[in-house]
C-alpha cells in the first residue's frame, strides 16, 4: 500500500473537516437541549477514522464506541439520518432508539457504536470470523480507546482473532484518558501496542497524523485481506473536550487542555497541504462553506422528522 496521492490528501482533509464541523454542530445542538443523554465527541482525534476508513469498502466492517461519530462519518453514514437519530427521531438510522451511543448503518458496514466499554471488540471480531467463514476478502476494524484495553473482551478478542487467524484490525485511539483516569492510573505500560506481543500479532504505534495512520492501516488491512491475520494499531492522540460534552476538565487544568488543543491534526495537515500547494486558501473556504451547508441541511432534516410514537416502542423486538 503506497503513499496517498494529492486527490486523496485533499479528501483526507475534507473528511477530517467534516467530522470536526459535524461534532461542533452536535455540541451546539446538545447544549441547546435538542439532543438528549450523553454526548462524547472526538474533536482532536479526526485523523484515525479518516486514515483507516480510506482503506475500507462498503462491505468491510467497522465497530465503534461511545466516541464513534468520526468513524461513522468517514465510513460513509448519511449525515441526515445520523442527525435524525441523535435527535431521537423516527427516521433516524435506529428509529430514534439509540442516539449517539448506538449509531449504526449496517448497509455501510457500520456495525454500531457500543455503550459498553470493550463490548464491541469481540462483535467486530465476529464480523472478521464471518468474512473468513464465507471465504471473502472483507476485513473488520474494531475501534476503541486506551481504557478499553483493560477489559477482558479486548484480550479475549485479540487472542481469538490471533488463534483463528481472522481478518481484523484492532485500532486503539490512545487519547490518554479513560473518563477521568489518566493512562498511568489504568495501565502500567505506556505503549498499549505492546499488548499485541502476548497474542502473537504485530503491534504498531502511530502519531496523530492522518498520512501515517493511513499508511499503517494500509499495511494491516492488506495483510488481513490476504489472510495474514490481525494487527493492533495504537494511535497516540489527545482528548480536547474531556470525557463528555460539559466536562469542565478541572482534574486536568486549563493549561494542559490548551497544550492539547495546540496540537491539532487538522490544522497541521492543512498547513502542510497549503505549503505543498496541494490546497489553496480558496479551496479551504469553499470546503468550509459546503460542509456548513451540508450540516445545516442535516440539522434541518432532523428537526423536521417526527418523534417515534409510543406504539412504535416494541416494533420489531422479535422477528
Amino acid at each position, binding site marked *: 500500500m503506497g503513499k496517498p496521492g494529492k486527490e486523496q490528501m485533499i479528501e483526507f482533509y475534507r473528511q477530517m473537516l467534516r467530522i470536526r464541523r459535524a461534532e461542533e454542530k452536535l455540541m451546539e445542538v446538545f447544549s441547546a437541549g435538542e439532543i438528549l443523554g450523553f454526548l462524547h465527541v472526538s474533536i482532536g482525534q479526526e485523523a484515525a477514522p479518516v486514515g483507516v476508513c480510506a482503506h475500507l469498502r462498503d462491505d468491510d*466492517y467497522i465497530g465503534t464506541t461511545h466516541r464513534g461519530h468520526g468513524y461513522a462519518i468517514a465510513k460513509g453514514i448519511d449525515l441526515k439520518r445520523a442527525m435524525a437519530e441523535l435527535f431521537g427521531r423516527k427516521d433516524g438510522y435506529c428509529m430514534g432508539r439509540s442516539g449517539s451511543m448506538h449509531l449504526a448503518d449496517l448497509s455501510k458496514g457500520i456495525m454500531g457504536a457500543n455503550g459498553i466499554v470493550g463490548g464491541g471488540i469481540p*462483535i467486530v471480531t*465476529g464480523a472478521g470470523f464471518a468474512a473468513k467463514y464465507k471465504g471473502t476478502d472483507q476485513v473488520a476494524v474494531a475501534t476503541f480507546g486506551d481504557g478499553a484495553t483493560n477489559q477482558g473482551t479486548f484480550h479475549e478478542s485479540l*487472542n*481469538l482473532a490471533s488463534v483463528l487467524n481472522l481478518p481484523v484490525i484492532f485500532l486503539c485511539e490512545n487519547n490518554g484518558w479513560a473518563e477521568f483516569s489518566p493512562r498511568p492510573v489504568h495501565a502500567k505500560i505506556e505503549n498499549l501496542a505492546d499488548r499485541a506481543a502476548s497474542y502473537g500479532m504485530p503491534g504498531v504505534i502511530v502519531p496523530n497524523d492522518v498520512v501515517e495512520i493511513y499508511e499503517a492501516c494500509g499495511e494491516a488491512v492488506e495483510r488481513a485481506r490476504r489472510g495474514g491475520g490481525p494487527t493492533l494499531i495504537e494511535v497516540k492522540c489527545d482528548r480536547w473536550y474531556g470525557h463528555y460534552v460539559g466536562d469542565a476538565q478541572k482534574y486536568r487544568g486549563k493549561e494542559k487542555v490548551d497544550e492539547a488543543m495546540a496540537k491539532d491534526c487538522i490544522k497541521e495537515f492543512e498547513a502542510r497541504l497549503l505549503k505543498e500547494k496541494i490546497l489553496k486558501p480558496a479551496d479551504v473556504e469553499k470546503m468550509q462553506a459546503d460542509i456548513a451547508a451540508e450540516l445545516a441541511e442535516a440539522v434541518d432534516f432532523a428537526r423536521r422528522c417526527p418523534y417515534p410514537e409510543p406504539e412504535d416502542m416494541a416494533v*420489531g423486538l*422479535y422477528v
Partner: protein
Amino acid sequence: MKDIRYIFAIKEAMEEEMERDERVFLIGEDVGLAGGSFGASRDLFKKFGPRRVVDTPISEAGLTSMAAGAASCGLRPIVEIMFMDFVTCAMDSIVNQIAKMRYMFGNQYTMPIVVRMPEGAGLNAGPQHSQCLEAWFAHVPGLKVVMAATPYDVKGLLKSAIRDDNPVVFIENKTLHAMKGRVPEGTDHLIPLGKADVKRQGSDVTVVAVSRLVNEALQAASDLEKDGVSVEVIDLMTVQPWDKEAVFNSVGKTHRLVIAHEAVKPFGIGAEIAATVAEELLDELDAPIMRVGAPFVPIHYSLEKAYVPGSRDVKNAVLATLQRA
C-alpha cells in the same frame, strides 16, 4: 420412531441443521476435537471439520460476542457454554449485546444465534456447576428461552431454535443427558417455539413445569392417580415467550395451579406465571397457587439430593391445592 438418548438427540439436531444450512456452525470450548464436554458434538468435528465446529480458548464473553458478530453478518452460530454457570462470564454479550442489537439498531439486524447450555444439579458438582438461571434470561426483552425435558422435545426444539431468526437461550439439563426416549426418524422433526405441550391430561390440578421437573411432575401425577387425583401436566418448553393460552385453558378447567422448576423458588419463572394468573384469571382459582422450587441457598455439594425439588415436592404441592396435604 427410534429410541435415542437426550444428548444424542442434541447432536442429531445440530448435525441435521448443519447439513441443511451451510451458515450454521458450532462454536465453544472443547466442542471440536473433544466432541463437547458432555459429548453433544461427538463426531461432528470429524464430519464438518474445524471451519464449522470451532474450538475456542476459554473466553465465554469473547466467543459469545464473536458469534453474535458473525450472526449479524449472516451466519447462524450455535454457541455451547459448557455449564450454565459459566454463562455469567458472557452476560454482557447476551444481555447487553445479543438481546439488544436488533432492537437498538432499529431492526437493521437479525440475530439468529442459539446459545446452548446445560443446567441443573445431578453431578454433585457444587455451587458453581449446578445452577438453573433461566429466569434471568426470561427477564430480558429480545431473548427467547427454551427448555427441553425429553429426547423428543430437545431435538425438535433445538432444530426450531437454530432456524429461528431471534436469539435463543437453549437450556438443557445434565441429568437428562442420558435419558432415552422416542424420537421420530428423518430430518423434519420440528417443534414450534412459544407453544407448550400438555404432557398429561387431567382435571383436578394443573402442574406447569419445565425441564427435569416435567418428568418429576409426570411421576407425581401417576402416583396421585392412585389416590384418585387427576393431574394435568403442562410442559412449558418455551419459557420466553411462554404459552399463556395453554396455561389459562388448563387452569380454566382445573381451577388449581402448581408451577414447578428446579431453580430456586424466589423470583423464578413460577413467580411470573403465578402473578399473571393472579392478575388475569383470579376468578377461576379455587385454591392458592403453589410453587415448587429449590430452597434459596446455593446448591449444596453433599446435600444435593435434599436440595433439588422432585416428584414428592410436586405431589405435596398438588395436595396442598386440594387442601389435603
